[in-house]
């Protein structure tokens, strides 16, 4: 298939846009892992929660209040911060000092729990007598499609496409990209220019030294977990626009790619995560393009982009585990 310059540029653009979203999804976990060395397996689940909050917002509130669904992204941020704090106190606080496995297991259970509640709600049937039974609804079903399939989010945005010189920029992906470039530098400023931000970075580097310097470690950990969750919320909010969301994605499927991005960018640096996200996005779409459209004679497998990414990830992990921009750790 003959390949033109337009195709190549289009492919690069797609890769960059996708990379922006990946960076947004990863930066929250980078923060959490950097400070507390906890792998929040439920991070993907958090993203999906936010996606469904946005979907419900646009189904329930937009027709009534005529508010743009993009505003729900702010709501997502807030909801996930609350959720992050709850998770921290519920699961992490007790387990984080007892080794690596405790939070891992707990967040894994949480991700399964979240997937279930999104699809089915937290509803208990109570049978009082053979003829009377009630249902105790603690949390209503969030997924409007009841797990039967995805809802293509908000048609008004998904069909908008910006066209510049023959290259198409799908509007939702563009918004995701711009959001990444808005939030991540803001986060970077927060981490470097504010007291609490510096506290987070200090705790990430050496928590004992930070404690001796007078930083409240517990508050810092809560803050970083909440902030990381909130960022997952933002990613989830825009995810609802760029993809059809399945509740079953609340499990761990997004996690390996996010982990690769975090490590490649360097655990201590959010700008690094942004760049790593963009690079990975480019790598995946570029190598898929090369393998499937240009070099078709070799019949490469279909997910060669992911293969290359993980291969590079492993090599970087072994050679320079602090990533491209992280602080070198002994």
């Amino acid at each position: 298939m003959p390949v033109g310059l337009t195709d190549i540029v289009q492919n690069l653009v797609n890769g960059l846009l996708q990379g922006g979203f990946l960076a947004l999804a990863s930066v929250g976990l980078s923060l959490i892992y950097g400070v507390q060395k906890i792998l929040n397996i439920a991070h993907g689940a958090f993203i999906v929660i936010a996606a469904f909050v946005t979907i419900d917002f646009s189904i329930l509130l937009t027709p009534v209040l005529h508010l743009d669904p993009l505003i729900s992204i702010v709501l997502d941020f807030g909801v996930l911060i609350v959720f992050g704090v709850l998770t921290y106190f519920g699961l992490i606080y007790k387990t984080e000092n007892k080794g690596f496995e405790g939070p891992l297991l707990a967040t894994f259970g949480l991700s399964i729990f979240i997937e279930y509640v999104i699809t089915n709600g937290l509803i208990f049937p109570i049978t009082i007598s053979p003829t009377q039974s009630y249902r105790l609804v603690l949390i209503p079903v969030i997924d409007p499609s009841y797990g039967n399939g995805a809802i293509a989010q908000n048609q008004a945005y998904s069909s908008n496409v910006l066209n510049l010189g023959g290259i198409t920029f799908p509007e939702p992906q563009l918004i995701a990209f711009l959001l990444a470039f808005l939030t991540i530098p803001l986060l970077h400023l927060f981490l470097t220019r504010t007291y609490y931000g510096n506290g987070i970075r200090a705790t990430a580097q050496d928590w004992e030294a930070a404690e001796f310097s007078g930083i409240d470690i517990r508050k810092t950990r809560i803050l970083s977990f909440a902030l990381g969750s909130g960022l997952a919320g933002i990613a989830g909010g825009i995810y609802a626009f760029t993809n059809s969301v399945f509740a079953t994605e609340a499990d761990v499927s997004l996690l390996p790619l996010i982990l690769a991005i975090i490590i490649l960018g360097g655990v201590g640096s959010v700008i690094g995560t942004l760049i790593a996200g963009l690079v990975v996005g480019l790598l995946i779409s570029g190598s898929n393009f090369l393998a499937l459209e240009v070099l078709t004679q070799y019949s490469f497998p279909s997910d060669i982009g992911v293969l290359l990414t993980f291969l590079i990830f492993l090599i970087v992990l072994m050679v320079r585990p602090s990533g491209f921009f992280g602080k070198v750790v002994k």
Partner: protein
Amino acid sequence: MFGLGLFKSSHNNSAWVTLLGLVLAGLVPFFVGASNQNALGQYVIYLVWITLAESWNLLGGYAGLINLGIGAFFSMGCVVSSVLLNLGVSIIPAMLVAGLVGAILALALTPTFRLRSDYFAIGTLVIPFLLKPLVEYFAKKSNFDVPIGIVLNPTLFYYTGLGMCGITIFGILLLMRSRIGMALRGIGDDEYASSALGVNVLMFKTITLVVSGFIASVAGAYYLGIIGAVNTTIFDNLSFSLFPAFMVIIGGIGTFEGPILGAILFSAVSYGAVVYFQGTSFEVLVFSIMIMFVAVVLPKGIIPTLRKYISRRKRKDSSDKN
């Protein structure tokens, strides 16, 4: 207590109980009756998970290497087994050859030992995703099945599984009793101290990974016999990588009974509860709450917490006598 010199240390009671359990399980086909042998098929999946959990415990529990990529070996075992079955090899040799392939794969993965513990966990997590395209490329197909002509005798299949499970459990027990086991425990406790004492850490880690990979691949080969056909998407399924780890963590990392208990508990809730809560997926809720509960309340796992409780009771009793 029952130390006949065969099982020499503190694991005595558990080892005998397990042996008894296996013997009883071996007698089940006789009680079920000749016409109901297919009912045995429900339980063989437990054997797979127990074997996988034991394999994970060897690396993660005793040697201290948290391997989150054991699904790679498992899936590889499925693939190899399918290829061999299609070539006319019978099931037990197929399982053994699959195990050998797993061992070779483990040898190929030894460079990852350079990684620090949490990076090792992350690094191993992505290994199944690396293997998937490679398998698809070299095998030129993505569906692997048990050939149609082959009918696996349910009773024989059941006993094969029991054998696989039993050999794994007691093989690992004997391994841990040997000098290799002592070295492994030392490495798990403190790698640098062991190295300073002259233990060849790299060699023992390699041995552990190879044995663990062998077992996991054999389990995968057996699994193909259970479900009949796999697609390469099994490499993408993180459950096979993560569940064995979680089973062992719940049961108790680094203990003898931990993997067995954890695997049985996990499987019972997953497979058994489905029957109880039919019509809804309520058992998923129970499952997730159970996991979170164990993680927060029993962070060391069930067995170590039980042991602490029992020894505290014993101490209390003996101090009461004074």
